[in-house]
């Protein structure tokens, strides 16, 4: 995802909506910021600077399908080599956030890296939240009406 910097008014809702604690508002600027995967470089046909600069190819950039395939192979390799704790994080399109555009090969539990172990998009409970909110709104209206049609009529 990319923040439109000419539009963002710094309301900060994305900051509290992110289950990874990634996006934040920049002090002195007031707008939300996060890694853009070097949006400008991508438009120029280049890969993100971090992937380009990485001397060990620990950071790789490419089509997600290919990356997932490559990651699965690497994982098998590590497991065969006696590193059973190796695992992928954020690669599964069926997880609570629908998979990530950037995913990791970890050697321990995600929380050890400061990552949430089983993140879920807050919007998963959207219907339930609106339903309860609507019920509370209706109850308020009903209570207000009944406050005026009370028996005492005062």
């Amino acid at each position, binding site marked *: 995802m990319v923040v439109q910097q000419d539009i963002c008014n710094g309301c900060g809702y994305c900051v509290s909506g*992110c289950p990874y604690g990634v996006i934040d508002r920049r002090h002195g600027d007031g707008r939300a910021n996060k890694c853009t995967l070097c949006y400008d470089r991508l438009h120029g046909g280049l890969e993100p600077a971090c992937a380009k600069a990485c001397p060990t190819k620990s950071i790789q950039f490419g089509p997600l399908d290919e990356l997932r395939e490559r990651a699965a192979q690497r994982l098998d390799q590590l497991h065969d080599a006696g590193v059973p704790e190796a695992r992928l994080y954020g690669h599964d399109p069926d997880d609570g956030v629908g998979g990530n555009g950037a995913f990791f090969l970890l050697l321990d539990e995600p929380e050890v890296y400061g990552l949430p172990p089983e993140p879920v998009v807050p919007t998963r409970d959207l219907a339930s939240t609106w339903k309860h909110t609507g019920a509370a709104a209706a109850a*308020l209206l009903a209570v207000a009406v009944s406050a005026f049609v009370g028996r005492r009529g005062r």
Partner: protein
Amino acid sequence: MRDDGSREELAVPRASFRSYYGRPVLKPPVWGWKIPAYLFTGGLSAGSALLAAGADLTGRPALRRAGRLGGFGGLLVSMYLLIADLGRPERFHHMLRVAKPSSPMSVGTWILTAYGPGSGLAAAAELLPASLRPTLAGRLLHAAGRPAGLSAAIFAPGVASYTAALLAQTAVPAWHEARRELPFVYTGSAAASGGGLGMLLAPVAEAGPARRLAVAGAAAELIASRLVERRPGLPIEAYTTGRAHRLRRASEYLTLGGAIVAVSAARRSRLAAAAGGLALLAGSALQRFGTFEAGVASTKDPKYVVVPQRVLLGRTRRDEALVLLGQFDGHVELSPECDQPDGRDWRVQ
């Protein structure tokens, strides 16, 4: 097998989790005091607008005046608080570029946009000087007062309730976990504060509906607030500990006290009604700051994120999970490895 090397099971399992050097997983909300203050003024505005419309229809001019002016005054303060809290206040109108049902922030913007004109027009009609009344503009404005007030009252329940969805629809553990009860806490709080303002500003003879609205709202707020605390789940601990807990307890005392006054002395004494009204207003404000603070606290300690998600994954021993969730029942699993598919102990040393 245990940290100390002994092979004996501990009577109560150690409640531990791992993190990156105890650093938070989430970013705390960037919102300052202005947002919980807005939660209060927005609710107050909505409660007052409902009271004003009812007073208008049932011939209670003093209560109508208090409600309309309180409603619009609350809205003006709300607008200031919301805009001033933005990182780029001069871009506040960018909110109106889109309408997104999945974002309570966007839905709320549109609810306030629909609510504002009625609230403003009703207040203007109320403030219309008698000397301008005979003019055409004066007569039009006077005639517009009732429909404008009713329009504000129609949207007022939305104004009072959407703020609960605004907080609940985030990754902030304490807010998200309370998503079922929070709307009732907030609409109850809005009714209590609106009723409290009516008790404070309108004479006793006209303030009957204000007292009834205040009592019903206070009851809803107190019950829903206690239901939040009874909900299982670690994030709820953020409501029952620290500053959030102190704010919410103070809120309970004030709201309860105000409600008791509303059903007793406020029916006879103007002074008692004013005191009860002030207590209800203060109780509502502290409730907003308390729930807000609980959410902030739940982003700062990684346990509120890691533990519930661990339990969700089923990779935590049952007894440990219960300790972490505050529901330990005394039953200890005898073979810690059996519940962990990978057979490793992930706990911190």
